[in-house]
């Protein structure tokens, strides 16, 4: 479905290519795209809000080195990790439930509507990321009376809030956490702090005073409680609506695969993928009884008859107590070469 060219030697490889790797690839691509657009909208639209306060003079909110490093080092690795390793269900379940392939066919996970949702989310996040630090710093001082409402402190707070928000967002969107994902995500966050300390350190700023101008900002700003509270509030305001939406979406706007995911969740307890032998004895595990004696639906898919029999297949899979007589004759009689899946 994503227009790639593959060459493989045996037809039965097609099943795994489509149902497992093709499906994962589509999911990862859509997640990657929606996250990437979101992160860049959030980053850029802060300047739209700031324009109203700086006389429309195109003064950037962030420091120049942050702008250079943002897409390059602070946010590239986590999204790379998600794009390489993310799996919504593992390969066994992908093969068991070919219906999971449908969102790709229906262009469900990234289309114009999803893009507009990214845009709206980016606008909202940028609004929060600008106005919460602005409200905090506008009329405040440090607790020893000295300045905290200056441009450099404001810049640092917005930068740090932004990095935390986009990191928490990618952490929320990554469903399959390998050790590499952990390293990429928490490592990028740690790297941001190390880079900030380095770029704003005395040595570098004194060596190149006109290039590195933010001397001492981290030390003087980050020990103030109102700055940390502002960052926490920005993160909370950006993340809670997203979590709430993720919770409510399958309840109010379910899509076809939501039922399949529920089914898989039910089968996962206790935490074992169902072996073929067990399901014959368990009557409550409706999900996989139909496969207890089948080779699989590989032949059916490759023969092109899947579309016609889709409706009847669904009825068979999700109804109680039906015998194998309901399976279409073609599937029973088709011979697909056995292979370990």
């Amino acid at each position, binding site marked *: 479905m994503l227009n790639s060219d593959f060459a493989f030697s045996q037809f039965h490889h097609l099943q795994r290519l489509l149902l497992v790797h093709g499906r994962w690839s589509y999911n990862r691509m859509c997640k990657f795209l929606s996250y990437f657009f979101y992160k860049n909208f959030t980053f850029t639209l802060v300047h739209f809000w700031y324009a109203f306060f*700086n006389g429309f*003079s195109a003064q950037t909110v962030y420091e120049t080195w942050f702008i250079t490093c943002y897409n390059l080092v602070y946010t590239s690795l986590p999204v790379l990790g998600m794009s390489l*390793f993310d799996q919504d269900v593992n390969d066994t379940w992908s093969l068991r439930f070919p219906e999971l392939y449908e969102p790709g066919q229906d262009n469900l996970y990234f289309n114009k509507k999803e893009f507009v949702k990214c845009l709206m989310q980016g606008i909202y996040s940028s609004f929060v990321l600008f106005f919460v630090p602005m409200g905090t710093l506008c009329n405040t*001082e440090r607790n020893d009376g000295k300045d905290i409402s200056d441009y450099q402190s404001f810049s640092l707070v917005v930068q740090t809030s932004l990095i935390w928000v986009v990191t928490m967002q990618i952490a929320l969107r990554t469903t399959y956490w390998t050790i590499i994902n952990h390293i990429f995500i928490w490592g990028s966050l740690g790297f941001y702090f190390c880079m900030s300390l380095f770029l704003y350190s005395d040595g570098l700023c004194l060596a190149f005073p006109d290039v590195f101008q933010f*001397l001492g900002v981290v030390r003087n700003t980050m020990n103030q409680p109102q700055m940390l509270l502002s960052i926490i509030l920005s993160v909370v305001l950006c993340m809670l609506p997203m979590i709430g939406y993720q919770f409510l979406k399958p309840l109010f706007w379910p899509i076809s695969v939501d039922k399949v995911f529920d089914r898989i969740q*039910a089968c996962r307890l206790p935490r074992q993928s169902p072996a073929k032998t067990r399901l014959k004895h368990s009557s409550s595990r409706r999900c996989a009884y139909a496969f207890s004696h089948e080779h699989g639906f590989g032949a059916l898919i490759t023969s092109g008859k899947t579309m016609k029999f889709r409706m009847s297949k669904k009825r068979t899979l999700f109804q109680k107590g039906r015998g194998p007589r309901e399976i279409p004759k073609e599937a029973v009689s088709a011979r697909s070469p056995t292979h370990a899946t």
Partner: protein
Amino acid sequence: MEEMPQHRLSRLPDNSALKQQKLPAHRLHFTTTRVLFVFFTTGIFCLCMGIILMLSARRTQEIEINYTRTCANCAKLRETASNFDKECTCSIPFYLSEKMKGKVYMYYKLHGFHQNLYRYIRSRSNRQLVGKDVKAVENCYPFKTSNNDTPIVPCGAIANSMFNDTIILSYNINSSVQIKVPMLKTGLTWWTDKYIKFQNPSLKNLADEFRGTTKPPNWPNPIYELDKKDPRNNGFLNEDLIVWMRTAAFPTFKKLYGRLNQTHHFIEGLPAGSYSFNITYNFPVTRFQGEKSVVLSTLTWCGGNSLFLGLAYTVTGATALLAAFAMKAIHMMLKNKQMSFFHQ
């Protein structure tokens, strides 16, 4: 099964967990319980934090006196640039109904002054301010050199537009005796600004060091004569200059002008009574519809008397708790529709 030829085997991807997409991992699951837990705890935390912040903001005291137009006819006088050498002073009385306890800080506040303009922020030379090279004026357009090509010290639009009003606070002990409230002009800046970012060329005679340079056009005195009373407060280490050079993020800002010296009558702060500000009005703001005021303020652990953070936290906490209850209700209503788990 026949053995595959060697060259075919070499094309197979490795059977490692990484390349076969079988790395050990744990899945992120947002079950209903966890989501509701997150919402409840966040709501409670934000609500408590908001109440604490609002209570502490209420405990501060602040007085702001806008003297843009109430200072004799100084505003009109300063609108014409040729009146620059005419001094204009005034005295603005006010009354403190409550004693200001503890440390009191005096600020000057400007409205409508955009220190965050792009070309304004760029117009400075940090090389010059760090004392490396007093003649380095590259980025300081349009205030690089004077008419006869002498470099300006300190160069740039930020330094040139420095706030130059003098504000003296006086206290009326009784109807006839007025004393000056002792204010400290030290300790107004960040430590890193005063000792690292801004340094004088050397400890020798500053006038010699700055020979061959000239003052910015809007300044009355050159940089080595900024503070005639305290010789250490001259050159680039002048605290008012350092405070001004830390450009503000928004068009309305206040900058520290002085700290109360807690001695004699003012050991516990500013007693209640009548005071007055004696102001030498030099900084023209009416030409760009700006305003200026003096602010006296006490502070707490989280800054001044801004209620924004407290309100925002309270509202967020309340909304999160309401959302948690709503989601719990929705979930219980839909529970019997076989939606026991939801997926990520």
